[in-house]
């Protein structure tokens, strides 16, 4: 009593107490782990012990060729409309289809929504206005903008005739809210790798993820992958193009630039444009024109761009007055602008823009990058592959000639084509017809009900 615990005794006590506590909680912890497959307590749980995946069918080396054997895939889910890609086009397509009454599944490769808009830090919203300042991007795209407006620090320069700038995190958040509200079935971290074909008709898509290859079956598939991964896998005709690939970054502390000092030397390059976050700018990068489907090229782009961004920020910091500027982040996603473009039933052309052509099957109206020209209509045929059925394109991979691709890929225009593809897919799925046989006036009516602008 009057002699204190020696160290060994003290440790024994601690061990015994810990073991007792652990044993006491063992039952509940184990049941929780079994149920959720996640850690139930202070250490991670074993979900399965000594596991060897039995049902795997490996690629085999046959001679010096690698052969992928045939195998059955687990069907993860069945749905009316499957939207592959959760970027600006895909999210809007999914929400539009759901609002039109279809069961919708949205699959996204990254862990967030918004694609290049948020993950690529394309924060300046070019493309929603036309010459004269009229805003043509309406509907769900405009709804997103309005919801961002209600958040603190989510969007700036939101006024008529001006291109606004958003905060990527605010946009990711709003898209999560909207996806949850719409009660979409969502799979994140799933990379669409194959189309499930039945002759010339697509019946779903195969996804690769940590859970392995799985299939999702659907009545209609919307390819909102940007790169046209699904349409290419389905055997639809497309044009493979090169474009500039950059990497956007954000820099901070611009509100702590010593303006007196800064005024004495020429302004450094790469200061970018303002964002809703005070003192933080987003810095665009145009990059070289390359093949955005070539993995070696993409790798080289990532390496070179990251090096350039870091070194350029150091250059900025060496400029008197700018010492406190720092690199906040580089975009999680590489800025791939254009890769595959669908060869559609109709093609969006510059001549139609110049002539102001009105299409009977109009499903959307696109804007100009810098309000330098008038509005242009998106014909429904631009979303439709020539031969493959039950497939619609949305976003930057819709059918457009080369010089229109820089307009088609703008975020508001992706909202517009996404909105159109979503509604058309829902109508086709619910009416039990092929997307090419869909009642276009019904699609237009629903689009208008959803406040889309069709000219």
């Amino acid at each position, binding site marked *: 009593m009057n002699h204190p615990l020696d160290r060994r005794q003290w440790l024994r006590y601690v061990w015994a107490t810990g073991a007792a506590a652990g044993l006491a909680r063992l039952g509940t912890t184990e049941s929780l782990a079994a149920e959720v497959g996640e850690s139930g307590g202070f250490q991670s749980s074993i979900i399965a012990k000594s596991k060897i995946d039995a049902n795997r069918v490996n690629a085999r080396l046959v001679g010096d060729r690698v052969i992928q054997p045939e195998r059955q895939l687990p069907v993860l889910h069945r749905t009316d409309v499957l939207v592959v890609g959760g970027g600006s086009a895909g999210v809007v397509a999914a929400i539009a289809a759901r609002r039109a009454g279809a069961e919708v599944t949205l699959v996204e490769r990254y862990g967030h929504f918004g694609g290049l808009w948020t993950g690529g830090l394309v924060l300046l919203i070019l493309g929603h206005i036309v010459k004269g300042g009229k805003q043509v991007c309406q509907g769900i795209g405009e709804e997103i903008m309005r919801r961002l407006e209600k958040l603190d620090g989510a969007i700036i320069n939101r006024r008529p005739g001006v291109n606004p700038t958003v905060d990527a995190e605010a946009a990711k958040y709003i898209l999560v809210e909207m996806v949850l509200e719409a009660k979409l079935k969502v799979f994140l971290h799933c990379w669409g790798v194959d189309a499930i074909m039945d002759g010339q008709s697509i019946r779903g898509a195969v996804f690769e993820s940590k859970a392995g290859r799985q299939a999702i079956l659907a009545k209609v598939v919307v390819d909102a992958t940007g790169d046209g991964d699904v349409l290419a896998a389905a055997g639809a005709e497309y044009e493979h193009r090169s474009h500039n690939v950059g990497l956007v970054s954000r820099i901070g502390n611009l509100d702590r630039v010593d303006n007196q000092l800064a005024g004495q030397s020429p302004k450094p390059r790469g200061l970018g444009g303002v964002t809703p976050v005070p003192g933080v700018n987003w810095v*665009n990068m*145009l990059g*070289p024109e390359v093949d955005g489907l070539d993995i070696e090229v993409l790798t080289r782009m990532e390496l070179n761009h990251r090096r350039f961004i870091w070194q350029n920020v150091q250059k900025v910091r060496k400029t008197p007055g700018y010492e406190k500027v720092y690199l906040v982040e580089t975009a999680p996603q590489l800025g791939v602008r254009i890769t595959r473009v669908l060869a559609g039933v109709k093609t969006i052309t510059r001549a139609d823009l110049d002539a102001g052509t009105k299409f009977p099957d109009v499903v959307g109206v696109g804007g100009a*990058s810098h*309000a330098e020209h008038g509005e242009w209509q998106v014909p429904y045929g631009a979303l439709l592959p020539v031969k493959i059925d039950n497939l619609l394109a949305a976003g930057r991979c819709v059918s457009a000639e080369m010089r229109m691709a820089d307009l088609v890929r703008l975020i508001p225009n992706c909202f517009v084509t996404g909105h159109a593809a979503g509604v058309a897919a829902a109508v086709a799925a619910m009416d039990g017809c092929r997307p090419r046989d869909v009642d276009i006036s019904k699609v237009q009516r629903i689009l208008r009900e959803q406040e889309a602008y069709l000219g």
Partner: protein
Amino acid sequence: MNATAVQRRPPSRPAASAAKRWRNLSRAGALLAAGALLSPWLAATQWPQLVPAASAWVALCTTIALRRVESVFVVAGLLAAALALPWRRWFCRWGCPVGLCADVASRIGRGLGCRSRSLPPVGQWVAIATLAGAVVGYPLLLPTDPLAMLAGFFGLLVRPVSAGAIYAALAVPLVCLISVLAPGLWCARVCPLGALQEILWQLGILLRRLSAAGIALGGRASAGSQGGALTGAGSSAHSSAEEHPSAVAGGEEADAGQTTGAADGWPLARRAAIGALIGLFGASLARRTTTGTAGRLRPPSARPEADFLGLCVRCGNCARACPTKIITPDSSPPSLAAFLAPVVSFSAGYCREDCRACTEVCPSGAIAPLPGGDKLAAPLGIARVDMSLCLLGDDRECFVCRNCCPFQAIRLVFCEETYQLTPEIDPQRCPGCGACQVACPVGPRKAIVVYPLG
């Protein structure tokens, strides 16, 4: 002379007024026809060319300056010139729409109590000096041609109306004003087209005299060819005797003052010699001032600046024909020599790749014809980029000029060292159409601008 005219008038009055009526009808028809040709409905075709090209003066001067007949429409003017040899001032009497206007104005002037004034034969000096200028490729006062001025008046049909178009349109009203204040003065003394016809008629008399003398002396020339000249001389003498006193040249108001010594070659020769010297001097002087206007963009296929400014009659046909309205008469030129010459500006539209309207309506060859319409063969300038203004210079997202270029002359070049993307213009592919300049989102100063070649 007036007294004799008045004395002689009563007996010949019924016949003269009947002829006058026909002449006025004919000229009114010409005015209507000119109006129709110059109206926007026909602007896209070649027909507006006819209005200035039918002028004997324009046709002669441009043919001399270019040393070839530029188009079929010019043939009409040359024919008009040939007809002026036997038929004195036939165009003034039967064809000139501006003469009709001047006559009406003169009548009003006389009704207001304005009196005829006398003036040296300004028109003849102008006509001779310009013909001499044409020999060295610079017919310097050609824009004072009445038909060119009439065409200029129709420039008001182009909307929006430019300051230059207003200035150009003021010429015909000015002629009318002169005619109100000094009835008959324009047609008789000032109009260079009337004066040229007068000169041609006098030349005709000389020729007929010479040929008559030839017959008298030689008498061996073939009957057919000489017969024509003989008849011509006969009819001319007849008309001269009949009409000279009644003063109908260039309409009823042109008195015979300009035709003093119709049969006397000496004053004409002297006038021709001095006028030619003035013309040559003026042409070289004007040509020298054109270097100051090198910064101006001219329509596609325009001849080199100095030749262009000399040949251009300021009819405004090109400006009216231009579907994108990028051509306007220059109202504030750097040199007087370029006043009202068509200048291209890309404020609203660009020179469309599928269009060659302006090259089809130029009556004087200032804008050379562009058969096949290959704009690259006749560039109006070349685009240049100012990277200090270009959005790409600031790494901002813009592919506008590259994408709108109808000739795919702009490519974006990336520098691995600086990470700078720069628009580069291929001079072989850029016709200076200005599509990029119009579309460039930078403003008010554009980052990509078309400059004249050289």
